[in-house]
Structures are given as C-alpha cells and as structure tokens.
C-alpha cells in the first residue's frame, strides 16, 4: 500500500496550499516529497507493529477538511473553567479568528504570528529531525494554518495559552493541526492543547507541535485528547529543551478511536529537566499508542516519565518508551515507569521500554508492568461498607488520579477529575463520591 488518494494528490502538487514565502514552500515541497517516498506502514514496520492503520487505508480521511465555523455557544461546552487562558480556536485544522481571543491583546511578552508572515522561521520544522514520521511530513506538506507562538526573553507569563482544536466535520476528512512554540531564555509560560469534537464528527486529526524551550526557560505543557470515538488522531510533540530549562508535559488520551502520539524530547543543553507524564483510558474498540523517546544528548540532564493506562472492553494500548543516552551524556538521570491495568479479558496492552545507553556514569530506572488492583486496598475499602464494585471504581480512579493530583495547574485538575471520574463511575452515586474532594 503506497498510494492513497493523497499520495496521488501531493505527487501531482494539486493540494498544496501555496504559502507566501518561498522558504515555507521549499519546506513543504521537501515534505511532500518525503511523504510520497515513505512507504506506508505495515505490521512489519517496527514503529507501527501493533497499530494497524486500516481505518486510514481507504483514503477518504485524506480529503482536506473544509473551513467551517461554530458559534460561541457551541464552543462553550469545551471551556475549562477558571483556566482563564488566552484561547486560540481551530476548527478542523483551520484557525478561527472570530472565536479566538484578540491577537492584538496578548499577554505582555507574547507574540503570535501566522506561519505565512512569521518573522523568524529559523526553527520551523526543525524539532523532529531524524524522528520525523510519515504523518509529520504529511502535516508539513499540507498545513492550512499554523500559528507561531513566541515568548520573549525573561517574560513570565502566568496566563496559559489554550489551543482548542475542534473536530467538527461529519464526513471523513483530514485536519492538520500545527503549533510552533518558541520560548526565549529565562521565560516562563503554559501551553494547553485541548482536542475535542462536536457530535457526529469524523475527522482525522494529524497534529504536530514543536516546542522550543530556551535556556533557563520553563514550559508547562498539557495535551488533552478528548475527541469522540468516531474520530482519529495521529500526532507528534517534538521538543528541544535547552540548558537549565525545564519542560513539564502531561498527556491525556481518552478520545478518538485510533490515537497515536509520538513524544520526542531532546536535551540541547546541560542541566535541563523534562517530565513527560501521561494517562490513557481506552475503552470499547479504541486503540491508544504512545511512542515516547528521550534523547539525552548532553550531560547532567534529568528526565522523568510516568505513564499509566486503564484499558477496558476490547480496547488496546501500546506504549513504547525509549531512552537514548548518548556517549557524552554522563550524569544523566532517567526514569521511566509505565503501569497498565486491564479491566476486561479482551483488553490488551503491549508495553516496551527501550533503553539505549552509551554513557557509563548514568542512572537509569525503568519499569513496565501490567498491574492489578491492590487486593489489600480493596479489602480495606470493603471493611468500611463499600461494595466491591464501587471499590473497583475508586481504586481504578485512584490509580489515575495519583498523576492528576500532581499537576501544577489546579484549573486543569478540576476540569479533568469529573471527566475521568465519569469514565469509571457507571453509577451516578459513585461519581459523586469521586469528585468530592473539591469540597474540602
């Protein structure tokens, strides 16, 4: 399978959006070429071994999404209360200025430009490097609108930027989402990527986020996949973390029938730190696939990664956590943990830590397990009158909530608790006790 409708289309050069600068056009042409040259993944392609792309093979998902609109009312349901973010709305990959906050009223120290007239494109499409995938090339080749978000040197921006990506088209189509986030040295900012969908949508979201965190800068990053199950999502988050910088990322995958996210973090300077935590909760026939990779290229960097999943019904999860410690990366501290809970005997998980260590003075800990609910904890709850069924709900929720509680942004915590609790609590009265903490 090497030819989809889009392969053909791109080869003919017909769907390329013609971007203003020749520089972007060049990058796009190269990407289009790469896309056309890269063979379609099969079960023999290592990185896609457990993630069949059958749903995409018919080709109908490669029809570029048309521009559409949604009313402010229709978008209200996606609001994250108390986040008080600067919100940018994309509908099926098209930037929707009317529903976004006023780009002339940005927090001090932040600029947002359209890709076409961005002042500095030095780093555009540079984050993935050798990790670029077929779908990344597709994204680059067919970008509709992309935003470049810049945080100035020393800027300490407390207002989070919330990029709301809505899948809305109710016939199969392709929506490219693209963000280039660039933080200058000593800056501090928060990015929330929020993927949602309207009823009956059938969108293939193909997203790429590039994060550049400059020297001594701090980036707080949340990526929430909450689309309905009729949608598909393949995405990549590629970050470069510079000297003494800190990246703190959290991923939640609950949406879409097929979700694949590549998380690639590269250390570009010593003394940097990255946390990539995540939660996935596939059910029904959902498939979630996280491929993470930490590139320890330089000495004295710390990476920490905790992913937990609960897989129900006939759902499947794939977790591949790679830690690559280069020859020069002495004094690296890298930790990776992946725990999975299967709540049905038809649920499946394939988890694999992948360590490549070429330096000798490093500390690296990893673990990938299929866990069970703690029998003693279960017993303790039951001795307090709680039914086995409810105890299961509470412990499953607790397993995930441990990671949610650690998030720095309390508005996100408050937003996610009920969203996640709803997934576990089959009865409303269970739900009530799960979200009770907010009362204290």
């Amino acid at each position, binding site marked *: 399978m090497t030819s989809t409708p889009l392969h053909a289309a791109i080869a003919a050069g017909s769907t390329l959006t013609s971007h203003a600068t020749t520089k972007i056009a060049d990058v796009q042409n190269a990407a289009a070429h790469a896309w056309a040259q890269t063979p379609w993944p099969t079960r023999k392609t290592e990185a896609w071994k457990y993630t069949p792309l059958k749903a995409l093979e018919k080709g109908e998902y490669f029809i570029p999404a048309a521009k559409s609109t949604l009313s402010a009312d229709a978008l209200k349901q996606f609001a994250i209360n108390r986040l008080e973010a600067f919100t940018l709305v994309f509908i099926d990959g098209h930037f929707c200025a009317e529903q976004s906050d006023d780009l002339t009223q940005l927090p001090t120290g932040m600029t947002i430009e359209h890709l076409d007239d961005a002042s500095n494109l030095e780093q555009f499409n540079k984050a993935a490097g050798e990790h670029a995938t077929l779908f990344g090339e597709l994204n680059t080749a067919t970008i509709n609108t992309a935003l470049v978000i810049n945080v100035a040197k020393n800027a300490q921006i407390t207002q989070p930027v919330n990029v709301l990506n809505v899948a809305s088209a109710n016939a199969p189509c392709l929506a490219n989402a693209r963000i280039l986030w660039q933080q200058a040295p000593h800056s501090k900012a928060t990015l929330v990527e929020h993927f949602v969908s309207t009823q009956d949508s059938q969108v293939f979201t193909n997203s790429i986020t590039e994060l550049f965190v400059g020297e001594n800068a701090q980036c707080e990053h949340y990526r929430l996949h909450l689309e309905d199950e009729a949608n598909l999502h393949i995405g990549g988050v590629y970050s470069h973390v510079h000297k003494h910088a800190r990246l703190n990322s959290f991923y939640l995958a609950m949406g879409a029938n097929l979700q694949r996210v590549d998380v690639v973090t590269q250390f570009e300077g010593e003394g940097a730190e990255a946390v990539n935590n995540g939660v996935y909760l596939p059910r029904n026939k959902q498939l979630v696939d996280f491929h993470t990779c930490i590139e320890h290229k330089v000495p004295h960097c710390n990476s920490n990664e905790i992913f937990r999943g609960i897989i129900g019904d006939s759902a499947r999860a794939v977790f591949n956590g790679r830690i690559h410690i280069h020859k020069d990366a002495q004094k690296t501290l890298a930790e990776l943990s992946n725990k999975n809970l299967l709540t049905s005997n038809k649920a499946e998980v394939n988890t694999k830590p992948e360590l490549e260590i070429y330096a000798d003075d490093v500390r690296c800990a990893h673990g990938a397990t299929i866990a069970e609910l703690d*029998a003693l904890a279960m*017993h*303790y709850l039951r001795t*307090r009158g709680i039914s*086995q069924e409810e105890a299961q709900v509470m412990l499953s*929720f607790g397993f995930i909530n441990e990671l949610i509680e650690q998030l720095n942004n309390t508005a996100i915590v408050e937003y996610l608790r009920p969203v996640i609790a709803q997934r576990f609590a089959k009865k409303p009265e269970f739900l009530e*006790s799960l979200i009770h*903490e907010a*009362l*204290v």
Partner: protein
Amino acid sequence: MLTIENLQANVSDKNILKGLNLEIKPGEVHAIMGPNGAGKSTLGHVLAGRDGYEVTGGSVTLEGKDLLALACEERAREGVFLAFQYPVEIPGVSNMEFLKASVDAVRTHRELPAWDAVSFMKKAREACKAVNLDQQFLKRGVNEGFSGGEKKRNEIMQMMLLEPKIAILDETDSGLDIDALQVVANGVNALRSPERSFIVVTHYQRLLDYIVPDYVHVLADGKIVKSGDKNLALELEEKGYGWLEGESA
C-alpha cells in the same frame, strides 16, 4: 450483641483460632491481651470477613444474625468496624472521597437519613478535630504517607463517622505518643454508649487506664485462656503470660 462460639479458623491452611468463645453484651468493653502470634488480629480479620481467613468451625452472631454468612462489606454495614493494626495506604483515593463513599454505604443500608455534602463536611471536620488531625488529612490519599500515629487516629476518625455497633480496635494504641493515646481514648469513650460494644486488643495495661474495660481476656494459642475484670490487666502487666500456661491446660 456479639456471640462467638467455639470459633475455629485457618490461615493458609494453618489452624490459628482453636475454639474461641466470647459473649459481648451491648455497651460492654472487652479488652483482649495475649502474646504475639496468639491469634488476636486473626480474630479481628475473621470477624471483619477478610478473604483467606477460613472459618472451619463454630459460629458468630451479631444481634442474633449469622455474621459469618455475610460478605465483608455487609458486615461493615451491619455495624462491624475493625480498626486495623496496620491501616492500608491507598494513594490516589482521597480520604474524603473514601469517607463519603463509606458513610453513604453504611447509612443507606441502615436506612438512616443521608448526609448531604455540607453536613458530611461538617461531620468530617468535627471528627478530625476530635482526634486531633488537621483537616488537610481529608484531602490526602487514604493513609498515604501518614505517620504510624496519624494512621491510628484516622481509624478512630472513621469509626466516629460510621457509628458501628461493635468496634474491634486492634492495637490502636501501639505507636501512639502519650497525648495521642489520650486523644484516641477520648474518642472511644465519647462513643461508648449502651448500644455500642468494643473489643480492644492491646499489649499495654496503660490504655486500659483511659478506656476502662468491663472484662479483660487473655487469648493464647487461639483460645481465650483466662477472663477477669480490669485487675487482670494489672496482674498480667506484673507477671506476664507464663503463669497462665498451667491454667489453660
């Protein structure tokens, strides 16, 4: 209230309780003392209904009802409360959420009026105060990172909210500092009533100065080998358990 007759139980195929008899009337406090490994905690677990504790003979009734026929959570709802010797840590499940679920389950079963969120909060705060635990403990994971003494106080707090008929306190005094001991004792004494009974398992006579028992029993090798009033505890403190061996034979 609680009648235990000739109770025999195995743990991992090993016979631990070997024909234990105990009759507890409403409002009474019974202290159980006895050497390590005698089966005191086993008795608590058997009464609370822990998996893996196999009853091989005898009977236990609570107000005439066959307790052993009930599932663990049903016993709790009927009014059995076990304060664990080693309370369990449950990270990710907040104490608050846990207490609410527990109180709801128990009150629903007993057909007591439900506590709405506001009155529940009020009760929970009061209970915290009564055992001298900061309210912040309500937000934390169940027993997660609590010190030994805090865990024990958390058990007593749960007991206060659940208002059991029979509470079994398994070494709730061990690991407590002198002030905390008094706090726990006050908590128990505040709950003493003609309708509620207690089994207090302890190694130390000191606790019984604060929680004055109606009876003191010695459990050794899976049986009650001697019973007496509170003075028996003093005698044990002085003489240890060795002198009883002759008597039990």
